[in-house]
Structure formats: structure tokens, C-alpha cells
């Protein structure tokens, strides 16, 4: 009971601290922008821990953060093997193939107007569909190993990437294109020097959307069949064994991998599109 009371107190304290931070003299500094979410996150984790211990919530419903952290530290080798299988082999290879294919396709679509008129509505339509549903089919075709997961990821990232890249390649204005024309630039010169750089913000938007989709595709595809390693496999079997601390440890891995993957793409974006207004701050 004391712990429950402590949780309430911690909540009040965390909120008070953040209100002070938000209305204090340093409210607009970088440090507060970094500290406030951190305080909030730590408060939530603290309350979680106290409530689980105070109310004696059984492990099969919600493990305490400390239990999850212990499990995470204990199962490093397993988690690493799952990470390599699902993220590196499945999601990443599929991401590279899918985004590369979509990029090449987008160049073709941009080149021929007929393709753009025909393929773009279809692409927009497909991008809104529940493509994870293709997972059972692709698992059947390419077997249980990571190849089928990469195939699911390819299908998932292809259309969002295609639609974004095509939109980006049309971004250069008529005036700019005319200027290239007056320089007697060939198609490829104007493509490399004008249209591709102008398309970069859109391309990176597509790449960033695709990072999350890639992880979702790789994990969900493993629910339909996988070798005895992989994050989706571990999650579904650990749920079956009611060892929820393992499930949560995998979710922590998924969260870290997702954020890192997204952050990596965002960092490359920052370096490539330094000229864009949204990056100059």
C-alpha cells in the first residue's frame, strides 16, 4: 500500500518538476527540451515499478521494469541472435532491395508520363492496403528463413517509397527546368544536378516511413512461420510460455532498433538535405 501511495507521490512530484521546467526561465532552452521528456519517462517507469510491486501484479500480466531489465541483461546472446536474424537479415536487406527497386521504378515512372498517370493511382491505392497480409503467401514461397521476411519487407516498403520518390522528382519548378534547358543540359545532367537533389526531402520522407514498415513486416511475417530464432518467433513463443519478461525484453530491442534505424536515416537526411528550410532550423 505504501508503494502505491509512493507512486501517486512520484506522479505529483514528476508533474510538479516538469511544470517548473516548462514555466521556468530556461523553458525554451535545449536542456529543458531534453530533460522534460526524460523526467516524464522516468516517472512513468518509476510508477510502473511501484504499482506492480505494491499491488502484487503477477508476472503473467505485467512484469516490473526491473524484472525486464534483468531479463534483458541475462538474455543478451539470445536477443542479439534474434536481432541479427530479424532486423539485419530480414528487415534491413528487404529495406535496401525494396527502396532501391522503388527508386529505379520511380525514375521510369517519372520519365514516361503514361506510366505516371497509370501507376501512381494504383501505387497510392496499394500503399493504403494491409500488405502484411501477403506474409503467409510469401512465407509459403520463400520458406521459413529470413528470405521470406525480406520479401514481405520489399512488398511493404515498395509503394510508399515509390509514391514519395515520384512526388519528389516532380518538385523542381518549371522555371528551374527551363534554366537547365537553356544550359543545353541532357536529361541525365538535369536529373543528377537539379531534379534528384530537389527530390531528396521527399525521398527521405519515404525512407523514414519505410524504416518502421520494414520492422513491422519482418516481425509480423515471423508469426506465420520462422526458424527457431527471430524476434517475432521469440515474442509469439514466449507469450505462449507466459514468460512476459522475455516478451518485454524483445519489445525493448524492437523499440531501440526502430529508433536507431530511424535516427540513422534522419542523420543521413540532415547531411544530404542541409540546404532545405526544414533542416536549417
Amino acid at each position, binding site marked *: 500500500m505504501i508503494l502505491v501511495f509512493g507512486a501517486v507521490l512520484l506522479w505529483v512530484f514528476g*508533474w510538479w518538476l*516538469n*511544470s517548473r*521546467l*516548462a*514555466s521556468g526561465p530556461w523553458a525554451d532552452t535545449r536542456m*529543458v*527540451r531534453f530533460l*522534460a*521528456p526524460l*523526467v*516524464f*519517462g522516468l516517472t512513468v517507469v518509476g510508477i510502473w515499478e511501484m504499482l506492480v510491486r505494491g499491488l502484487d501484479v503477477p508476472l*503473467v*500480466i*505485467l512484469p516490473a521494469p526491473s524484472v525486464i531489465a534483468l531479463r534483458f541483461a541475462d538474455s543478451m546472446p539470445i536477443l542479439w541472435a534474434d536481432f541479427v536474424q530479424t532486423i539485419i537479415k530480414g528487415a534491413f536487406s528487404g529495406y535496401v532491395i525494396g527502396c532501391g527497386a522503388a527508386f529505379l521504378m520511380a525514375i521510369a515512372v517519372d520519365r514516361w508520363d*503514361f*506510366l505516371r*498517370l*497509370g*501507376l501512381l*493511382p*494504383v501505387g497510392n*491505392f496499394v500503399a*493504403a*492496403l*494491409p500488405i*502484411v*497480409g*501477403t506474409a*503467409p*503467401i510469401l*512465407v*509459403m514461397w520463400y520458406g521459413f528463413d529470413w528470405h521470406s521476411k525480406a520479401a514481405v519487407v520489399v512488398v511493404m516498403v515498395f509503394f510508399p517509397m515509390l509514391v514519395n520518390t515520384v512526388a519528389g522528382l516532380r518538385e523542381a519548378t518549371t522555371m528551374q527546368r527551363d534554366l537547365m534547358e537553356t544550359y543545353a543540359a541532357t536529361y541525365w545532367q538535369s536529373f543528377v544536378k537539379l531534379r534528384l537533389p530537389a527530390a531528396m526531402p521527399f525521398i527521405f520522407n519515404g525512407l523514414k516511413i519505410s524504416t*518502421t514498415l520494414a*520492422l*513491422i513486416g519482418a*516481425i*509480423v511475417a515471423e*508469426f*506465420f*512461420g520462422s526458424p527457431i530464432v527471430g*524476434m*517475432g518467433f521469440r*515474442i*509469439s513463443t514466449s*507469450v*505462449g510460455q*507466459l514468460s*512476459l519478461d522475455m*516478451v*518485454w525484453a*524483445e*519489445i525493448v530491442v*524492437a523499440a531501440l532498433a*526502430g*529508433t536507431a*534505424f*530511424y*535516427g540513422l536515416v534522419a542523420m543521413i537526411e540532415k547531411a544530404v538535405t542541409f540546404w532545405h528550410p526544414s533542416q536549417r532550423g
Partner: protein
Amino acid sequence: MKQIVAVLTVVAAIVAIWYAACVPMNIKGVLSELERGGAEVQPPTASARRDIGEVRLVLSNSFAIPATWEQKKPRLPSPHQVAIELWETTIGKNITSKRSLVYHGWVTLSATMLGFVIGTGLGILLAVGIVHSRVMDLSVMPWAIVSQTIPIIALAPMIIVVLYSVGVQGIIPKAIISAYLSFFPVVVGMVKGLRSPDAMQLDLLRTYNANTSQGFWKLRLPASMPYLFASLKIGIAASLVGAIVGELPTGAVAGLGARLLAGSYYGQTVQIWSALFAAAILAACLVGLLGLIERAVLKRMGMAQ
């Protein structure tokens, strides 16, 4: 007009490629069946055929090509097989039948809609809080943005099992997964929308001596509508994915996800494809419906382009 021709051409090309792909995909299975039926196939034994490429098999057994489009359990069903299966399981069956896709679609759709309503409702509330409270903005908003980069769908199996162990089952667990998948896109989009009025417009309201709630109802909320609809479309697609994935881990007996899973267990490829197309049609209808509402609302508000 030109656009319609182009779209139809592309769709026709996709169907043509699909039919063409059926031939090499299914040729081995077809040849085995024909061999068992006593027909002459080249080469005559399955073990000899195993190491030969599909294309060469097709070339040396060109009489078998029509059979690749009519197989019972093909690796890749042909478009008309899927279309016939779709037709038979929607129109041809009583909608209360366990084999009717309308029944399975309804099971998934009801979970999707319940989750979508809960998720967007809470999402809009949180967005209003974030816009009006600086504390919430500073502490919650970064987490909402980070959550977009995490495959939170990985939580789905756990939610189903945990809720089952405390006695909640049926539509609620699936709806919860749908709700949290649609929640974050709505929060992020709605915050952007509620912040979209520029300083000039906010200042104008201040000169009218409008209070916060007037500013909200008369300026921020109307201005956020285009953003809201954009994120609702993303949210409903995510909700549907959530409901389908929510049916996978427990071996649910009803719903489009259950059809997918059962089809993949028993190798009923035609059933998988028809469930997949049913899900696609459902998603298209939901997004299309939201698009219609969006157009009507924006037109009524004088914001339509």
C-alpha cells in the same frame, strides 16, 4: 479520360503478368498431377524434374499450360480463381455461414471500427491537451513522435494473451490493438493541425478579446480539419492492420486474419488470396469513405480546393 485509360492499361498489365507468373510457379505441381493421371510428361519422373528450371519445363510441356491456371491448390492461384472464390464466398454464401467472407469481414471490421473510434477519440483529446498545456507538450509530445518509429504491433500477441488471462476476450483485445495503432498518428497529425493557424490569425482573435475556448472552437478546430482527415486515413488503415494481426496469435476462429492463418496452415492458397483481397477491398472502402466525408466536410466549410 487519359488517366482512366492509363490506369486500366496498368491494371491489365498487372493481370497479364500475374497469369504469366502462374505458369512457371505452378508447372511442377501440375506435371506431377498429370503424371499421376497417366499423361506423357517430359521428363517423366518427379526426381528428374526437380533439378530442371521451371521455364524449361514449361517449354518442353507446353500442353500443360492451361492446367496451371486451374490447379486446386496452386502455389500462385490465377486471377479468375481468386475472383470466383471471392464471388462464391461473398455473394454465393449465406452471410451467417462460417465460410462466408462477409461474416469474417464483419468480425474484423467491427473490431477495427471500435478500436478506431477509441483511438481517434483519445488521440484528439491528447492533442488538445498538448496544444493547450506547455507541460504536456514538453513531456508527452517527444514520446508520441518516438512511438511512430517503433514497431508497436509487436505488442499485439502479448495484449491478446494477457487480456485473455484476466478474462477479457472477443472483440475487446483486437479493438485495443487497433486503438493504439491509430492513436499515435492521430495525435501527431492533430497537434500539427491545431497549431496550423498562424500568428496573424491568433492575434486577430486576441484583438476580439476571444478566450481560449472560443479560440479553440472558432479557429484552431476548423483549421485542423485537413490535418485531421489526413491522419484519420492513416489511422484507419493502421487499425485494420491491427485487427488482422490481432487475430493471428491466438488462433482465432473468425475474422480475415483467421482466414489467412487457416489458409496458410492447410495450404489453401486460393483462400489466402481471397481473404487478402477481401482485406484490401475493405481497406479501400474505409479509406474511400473517409475521403468522401472529408470532401463533404471541407466543402461545407469552404476549404475544398
